[in-house]
């Protein structure tokens, strides 16, 4: 393991833990931004430049802003007085431990540790664009449809109902 990877991994994990455990919701959202940024840096480390920048643009530029807006709209900016965790938290922890144990055990016993990285891989923007327009054109169209549907759906769900008299 290299030093940059360890630094990024520790930062990402710390930010993720903070995002899930802090008391103030805005702090949670800001810690989540840290985790997303760390993940974007990990993508850059894996030579996936385009995906790394897209991650920053979409998650930090759009999703994080949406989330802080939602927190403010639902008056979550104040510190909640009641308990932080749900009443069935013990089951959640048990399920999480079981899932992580299974995943870790599988990774440890898999072929993954013997894998060597490809020599010098480059995913240039041109190649990605070509692939999007040829091999992956159907998923691209579907995602366009999905985004349009999500846009209209989100507007309609969040639209204030007309006050009936």
């Amino acid at each position, binding site marked *: *393991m290299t030093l940059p*990877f360890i630094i990024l991994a520790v930062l990402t*994990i710390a930010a*993720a*833990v903070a995002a*899930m*455990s802090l008391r103030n*919701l805005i702090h*949670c959202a800001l810690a*989540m931004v840290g*985790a997303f940024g760390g*993940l974007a840096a990990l993508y850059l480390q*894996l030579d*996936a430049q385009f*995906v790394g920048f*897209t991650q920053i643009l*979409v*998650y930090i530029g*759009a*999703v994080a802003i*949406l*989330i802080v*807006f*939602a927190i403010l*709209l*639902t008056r*979550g900016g104040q510190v*909640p007085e009641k308990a932080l*965790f*749900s*009443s069935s*938290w013990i089951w*959640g*922890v048990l399920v*999480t431990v079981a*899932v*992580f144990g299974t*995943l870790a055990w599988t*990774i440890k016993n*898999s072929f*993954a*540790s013997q*894998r060597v*990285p*490809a020599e010098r*891989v480059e*995913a240039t923007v041109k*190649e*990605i664009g070509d692939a*999007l327009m040829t091999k*992956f054109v159907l998923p691209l169209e579907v*995602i366009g449809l*999905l*985004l349009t549907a*999500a846009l209209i*759906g*989100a*507007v309609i*769900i*969040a639209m204030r109902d007309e006050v009936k008299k």
Partner: protein
Amino acid sequence: MTPLSAYLILSAMIFAIGLAGALTRRNAIIVLIGIELMLNAANLNFIAFWRFSEHPEALTGIMFVIFSIGIAAAEAAVGLALIIAIYRHYKTTNVDEVNSLRG
């Protein structure tokens, strides 16, 4: 170079943290953040597998992550719209208190 298993373990840890948050927190927005973290952990797996694959020029992992990011954005928009609608109705975003189906 960092071995593939390190990336996979890291991704599993992020997934577990997200899962723990989604299952134990009371606030619906934090539950949504947990789900986003889980999606991101899966994305990290895709990129790592792409980097360590025998045919990286096929770009399958990259494409999957691009589509996954698009879906996550749509999911966040709809999810937050739902949370706001629920808040308007119940005046709370606590998932424990939102337990009745009637309006």
